[in-house]
């Protein structure tokens, strides 16, 4: 199973870009082994689902990238050792999946540089323009992995 997790709050402008990518992916690309999830925040119990995946791709807005820039970033399961019901990082979830279930799926974060987090259901123009590229990168990661599976 390949898992894509779009993270964000669609009521806070650009923060919803991860969810928007997940929604577009679910609408445009269906495959029997693909599971797409959209959530406001990551919670520890997602580790159980992650443990069943061959690859997990997180999609999230980023404050550390220039606005509208899209980047595939590696994730380190050991990088984050803290989680809570309200805040859990992708790397912490990967760490949990490894520690709890011995699972180490291939993983990546597709980060989209964002700027406007006020009350809005709209993405800002540069982030909206970056959405197709983010989707393209996610699909690239998915197909790259599919090729490796006999």
């Amino acid at each position, binding site marked *: 199973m390949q898992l894509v997790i779009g993270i964000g709050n669609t009521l806070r402008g650009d923060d919803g870009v991860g969810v928007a990518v997940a929604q577009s992916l679910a609408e445009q690309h269906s495959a029997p082994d693909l599971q797409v999830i959209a959530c406001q925040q990551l919670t520890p119990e997602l580790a159980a689902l992650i443990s069943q995946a061959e690859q997990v791709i997180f999609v999230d807005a980023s404050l550390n990238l220039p606005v509208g820039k899209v980047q595939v970033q590696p994730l380190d399961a050991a990088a984050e050792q803290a989680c809570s*019901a309200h805040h859990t990082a992708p790397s912490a979830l990967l760490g949990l999946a490894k520690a709890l279930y011995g699972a180490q799926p291939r993983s990546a974060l597709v980060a989209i540089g964002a700027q406007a987090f006020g009350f809005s259901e709209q993405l800002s123009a540069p982030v909206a323009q970056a959405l197709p590229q983010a989707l393209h990168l996610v699909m690239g990661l998915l197909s790259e992995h599919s090729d490796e599976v006999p």
Partner: protein
Amino acid sequence: MRREISINPVTRIEGHGKITIYLAEDGSVADAKFHVTQLRGFEKFAEGRPFHEMPSLMARICGICPVSHLIASAKACDALLGVRIPPTAAALRRVMNLAQLAQSHALSFFYLSAPDLLLGMDSDPSQRNLFGMLAANPQLARDGVTLRQVGQRIIELLGGKRIHPSWLVPGGVTEPLSAEKRDQILAMLPNAIAITQQAIHWFKSILPRFSEEIKVFANFPTLHMGTVDRRGNLETYDGYLRIVDADGNIVEDRMTPEDYLELIEEAAEPHSFLKSPYYKPRGYLDGMLRVGPLSRLLVADQISTPLANAELQEFRQIPERQSSFYYHLARLIEILYAWEEIQRVLNTPDILSEHVRAYAEPNAFEGIGITEAPRGTLMHHYKIDKNGLITYVNLIIATGHNNLAMNAGVKQVAQRFVHGERLTEGMLNRVEAVIRTFDPCLSCSTHAIGQMPLHIQLIGPNGAVLDEIAR
């Protein structure tokens, strides 16, 4: 001049609060207060909205227990419509409420409190979390994740999504249950029951390590309020409110939602945004109430499901069962009840009936909905005008009912464990841990924004900082 210790924020609870401990000149604890420092204002901004929006609006109060608010709100709206919802709709709401109760209790026990219970109150705070638990007892951590997941999955199967499902509406629910989904839920339950029994067994095995905490973790006589059915069984969706005293004597019984106006009064304290409800006939402080899993077990005569009832009868033999430390055990027993009761309800013949919603225009200007949320009795009270627009909202949240007891509990623990002018992590963690036994949900109860660092200062009579801890 009094000296103060401030714990700000209290960690591993839902929302933001702080604790102030006031020291006397000799270094002993003179007083302690639990402050809730956030305000959300849901009661006011709902005014003017169409009443049928209320379940969806009120669910946004909380991301942990949205289902509880949905149910209390939907029940208040049922009262505005003046309808009796179809029995299958009531059964399905009951299942969702139980799943919510189980997943929330699992969060409280396994994610928030088990690190203290497993690693000890004096352990390194950087290890007192899910990862620290993993290193010490991976099976316990896995069990916590599984129980949360089962509860969330049941909510998702019934409501379409796990947080803020829009399936619960005034008059019933929007969709009947399919046989496929029923079977999916039933298939998860045997494992969930086995895991819960293991957790109960484990918790009982560690109790001897916490004899000192049991003595002073809000261990004093109070009233207890909870819901029972007409036979006195534990009930969480619908039934009658009952209040018992510390000796188990029934003080109020067969209370209907409307009775709350005469029996519960809300006091406001200057040090907190959280109101302090109390049992009106006994007055402020003497009318101190507790609610939630411990109180529900103290209020009920028995539990209708066999495994949980056996645990209840054993629980009743514990001499210090008034101690809030036993909220943890009560929580686990209620999780067991939830799985058993979901099994029973889903095996009833009409559970797949397609008649799951009653339709009506408003027939009353006032409606009250009461249900048992994970943390205790939850009350939603609405008034509408002739156009169906909300003119008045009063919400009494479970955490509020426990406010007086939480404050008294913080003082009791501080007086036992905090001394002198040096602070230790273990001391302060116990002061926080007594709050965690109640599993307060401050986002709910003040109807959180931002992250605050934990910063504790001990300030001397001349204003000098004597000691300081930051997390």
